[in-house]
């Protein structure tokens, strides 16, 4: 038999026709009886194995259910002890002066365990009569029920009033499987002023569960309902959450607890103290008014953030208390994208605010010296190209050196300088100031923005780099975008003469009475070939504020402190060669962004300030700088008040 098929296999390869003939022939040759007999023998062996295996299973069942029945019976009866997980209290969050920013408030809720309710529909209608709630409540209960794990409690009413609780309490016996639970709900007393930095907690969803499972943390969350979703609440989730506890309770045959046998209390999460000053934060928040944008106040020496605002904002309590679909849709669909953290995710063209760094690169590379002068006729042209890059001052600044180029914010100087440096040199220097990289601030919602280079453009658009684009990059336009937090770091590098801090919201952790200060981090410092160049630039920035020609002079006139800074006005849309920009005529979305970066005092600065306002009428000098002025006024007044209190 085997030989026959092998022989056939060989002949099959010769020609197709013979193979077909042979195939037909083979069917007749094939010994059906031998095949059937072989198969029959194997089926018999299988049957024997099946019988033996079932026999083993059955004898094991006999061992469990008859021989050891008694001991298992006892163990089953002992099995009246249930382990109930206890959720730890979430750590609290304070500002730098100990004012509470996130707290836990006790709330009564009405919980239903559908598994233990005999007639759910009837129970719900009767509850509705007693407690008087809308039909929507029942609808959302059914929605929640579908999302919950089976056999678990589902919330019917989130916030019971005292009256509702009392009315239910007297009729509790009519509602098996329904109970009042007291639990703590996260509350943010300052609402929308701090949302993007502080973040919020919300109900654990299937994605969170999967992630917890992957990180092997699901056991610790067995009793927890909410998890940090954004900002500080998310970044420090592990510290804030704490450790689960257990309670052993004896239950009756219906699973009801009779008495508590032992308790292993949960360990509450750690309290966080932030660098934020909530008064300053609220002041900055109000300062932006109805404008969209960001304000940051940071200590350049250690990266401690005093205030960080992103507007528009929203109320984080919506999420903590359970956001409705309509509320969430309103946030998602708003054209002003309130969910975006503009301070860390908003990619703004930095415009003139980065001229100080560009100037430093020029000095460091030796392309210019502190005394190099150029003639600015009001425009710049690449040799042999017709296009004119216009200065914001149509008639030109005349003779300009590096200091006056910063004080008056001359564009032509930087068109020329950028072209001489080339995009890749500019890029390689700028990443050292933190542009195009995440700053490492302690919230997860951060973008790297874009510091363009030849390689970047090739990778992003698969296009070559054009010299004309380098010219625009020189004044912080073209593809160059920065987040406000990057600008804060870039400015801190200047005031620190190279030291580059990592921005940080966390001031300290508190566990019981022990206070652990947060780790202060910094990145590789910028080292210049000639350290005196720092002074050239800082001097120019001080003059921007202190001299009459300076673009920030008007905003800071009469201030009680010294400061330095740089204004910027970023074009959101490019303007044609002969077109004239008129803010009031064009669509609001295409109006300029007003930017300001600054620091104070002028010597040994203790704060840097960044203001970015979107789509304004007016530029950095007239919109952003006055806001920075008001914020710094408030800051120094506050410092003075604190100093007096201490005396």
């Amino acid at each position, binding site marked *: 038999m085997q030989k026959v098929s*092998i022989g056939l296999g060989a002949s099959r390869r010769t020609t197709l026709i013979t193979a077909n003939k042979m195939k037909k022939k083979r069917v007749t040759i094939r010994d059906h009886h031998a*095949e059937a007999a072989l*198969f029959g023998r194997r*089926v018999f062996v299988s049957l024997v194995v099946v019988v033996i295996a079932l026999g083993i299973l*059955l004898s094991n069942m006999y061992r469990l*259910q008859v021989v050891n029945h008694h001991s298992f019976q006892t163990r089953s009866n002992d099995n009246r002890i249930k382990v109930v997980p206890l959720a730890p209290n979430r750590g609290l969050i304070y500002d730098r002066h100990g004012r509470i920013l996130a707290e836990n408030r006790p709330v009564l809720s009405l919980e239903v365990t559908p598994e233990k309710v005999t007639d759910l529909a009837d129970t719900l209608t009767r509850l509705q009569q007693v407690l008087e709630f809308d039909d929507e409540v029942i609808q959302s209960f059914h929605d929640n029920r579908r999302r919950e794990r089976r056999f678990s409690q589902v919330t019917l009413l989130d916030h019971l009033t005292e009256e509702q609780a009392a009315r239910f309490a007297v009729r509790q016996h009519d509602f098996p499987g329904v109970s009042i639970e007291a639990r703590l709900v996260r509350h943010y007393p300052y609402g929308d002023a701090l949302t993007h930095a502080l973040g919020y907690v919300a109900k654990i969803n299937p994605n969170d569960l999967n992630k917890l499972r992957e990180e092997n943390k699901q056991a610790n969350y067995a009793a927890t309902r909410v998890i940090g979703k954004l900002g500080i609440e998310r970044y420090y989730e592990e510290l804030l959450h704490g450790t689960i506890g257990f309670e052993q309770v004896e239950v009756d045959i219906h699973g009801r607890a009779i008495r508590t046998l032992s308790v292993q209390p949960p360990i509450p999460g750690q309290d966080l103290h932030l660098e934020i000053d909530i008064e300053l934060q609220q002041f900055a928040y109000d300062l932006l008014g109805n404008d969209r944008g960001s304000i940051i106040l940071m200590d350049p020496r250690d990266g401690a953030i005093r205030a960080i605002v992103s507007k528009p904002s929203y109320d984080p309590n919506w999420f903590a208390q359970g956001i409705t679909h309509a509320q969430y849709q309103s946030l998602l669909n708003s054209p002003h994208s309130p969910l975006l953290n503009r301070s860390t995710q908003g990619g703004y063209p930095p415009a003139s605010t980065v001229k100080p760094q560009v100037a430093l690169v020029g000095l460091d590379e030796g392309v210019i010296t502190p005394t190099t002068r150029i003639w600015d006729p009001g425009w710049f042209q690449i040799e042999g190209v017709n296009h004119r890059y216009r200065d914001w001052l149509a008639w030109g600044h005349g003779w300009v050196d590096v200091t006056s180029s910063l004080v008056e914010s001359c564009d032509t100087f930087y068109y020329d300088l950028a072209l001489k440096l080339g995009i890749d040199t500019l890029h390689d220097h700028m990443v050292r100031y933190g542009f195009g990289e995440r700053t490492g601030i302690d919230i997860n919602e951060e973008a790297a923005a874009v510091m363009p280079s030849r390689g970047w453009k090739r990778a992003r658009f698969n296009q070559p780099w054009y010299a004309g684009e380098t010219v625009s990059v020189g004044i912080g336009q073209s593809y160059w975008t920065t987040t406000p937090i990057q600008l804060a770091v870039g400015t801190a590098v200047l005031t620190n003469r190279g030291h580059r801090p990592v921005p940080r919201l966390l001031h300290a952790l508190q566990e019981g009475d022990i206070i652990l200060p947060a780790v202060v981090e910094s990145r590789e410092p910028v080292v210049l070939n000639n350290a005196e160049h720092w002074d050239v630039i800082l001097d120019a920035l001080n003059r921007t504020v202190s001299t009459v020609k300076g673009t920030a002079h008007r905003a800071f006139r009469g201030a009680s402190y010294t400061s330095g800074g740089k204004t910027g006005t970023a074009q959101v849309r490019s303007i044609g060669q002969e077109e004239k920009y008129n803010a009031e005529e064009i669509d609001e979305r295409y109006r300029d962004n007003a930017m300001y970066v600054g620091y104070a005092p002028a010597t040994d600065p203790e704060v840097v300030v960044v203001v970015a306002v979107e789509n304004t009428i007016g530029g950095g000098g007239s919109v952003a700088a006055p806001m920075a002025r008001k914020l710094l006024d408030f800051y120094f007044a506050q410092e003075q008040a604190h100093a007096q209190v201490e005396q």
Partner: protein
Amino acid sequence: MPKSNSNSAPHSWWQRFHIDGPLLFGLVLLALVSIATVYSASGQDLAMTERQAFRIGLAFVGMLVIAQIPPKAIERFSLPLFSIGVVLLLGVLLFGESNKGAQRWLNLGVITIQPSELMKLAVPMTIAWFIAEHGIPPSKRRMGMAFVLLMVPTLMIAKQPDLGTAILIASSGIFVLFLAGISWRLILFFMGAIGAFIPVLWFFLMHDYQRRRVLTFLDPERDPLGAGYQIIQSKIAIGSGGIEGKGWLQGTQSQLEFLPERHTDFIFSVFSEEFGLVGVIGLFILYGFIIVRGLIIAIRAQQVYQKLLAGSLILTFFVYVLVNIGMVSGLLPVVGVPLPLVSYGGTSMVTLLAGFGLLMAIATNQRFVMHH
């Protein structure tokens, strides 16, 4: 040949609709056991029980539809189905959606599918087709090729990782080879090779959670609150059932929620607690009846392909029973295989009954040749 005979032989109602009576009888009884036990194990959740009953009904319809396909057509479908399956598995490995830490699902926009389920049928079909083409016993070369054909999907599924399904699929192919009559010497050699492979599996191929399962299986008491909890609770449930059981809906272990996954993989524990050894023997007789009926269909089949496929499908069904009962009663490590046709869940139900559909197609297409 079949046509001339089909006219002469009087067709019964069953025959006409390609239904194997005894098999259907056994399966319907199992379905009733399933509904009763799911009702109890779900904590008397009517919605879940209804869902289970609905799925069973749907799966039975699927089975009867598949039973109408002529076995010749099934044979022709084998390789295309297998190829589609392999492509989909590749898709899962590349773009699959993970669920409970394992990637098994492929989202095709409209529906999510689990290609490994498809392979439970496609693998025995294809190996049987590949072997049957040249008669049995197969040559060494053909057998080697069949083995490679089998390992491709098996390894892909083990990688997802889904050890339970990988074992079921590997067995379905190995059964085809065994039934095709590979020599005992080779069988011994393979057993030795598998023995040698175990350390490799342990140290290099198994995931941490799989290793933990094996360690827990060897000594459940070493982790009584963690991974061992399930198996200890399961044994307590079974053991406390005794000879007569605690009665339907009266199992304290299961009703008091001490037993995790009691309506899915551990449903046998609920059944044993409530119906005792008497019920267990009854269930064994029911499974034994279905398996014997399947083997009879395999022996009666006239074409080698049909014999191999029928034999492999019914023996794989037996492996389900063996592995599931073995694992919940503490004889085998927990690998996540449901109790066939009883556990709550739609996916395995559909695949298993589709397999029985194939068996019925084979059973009802051999009558005319029998007179010969």
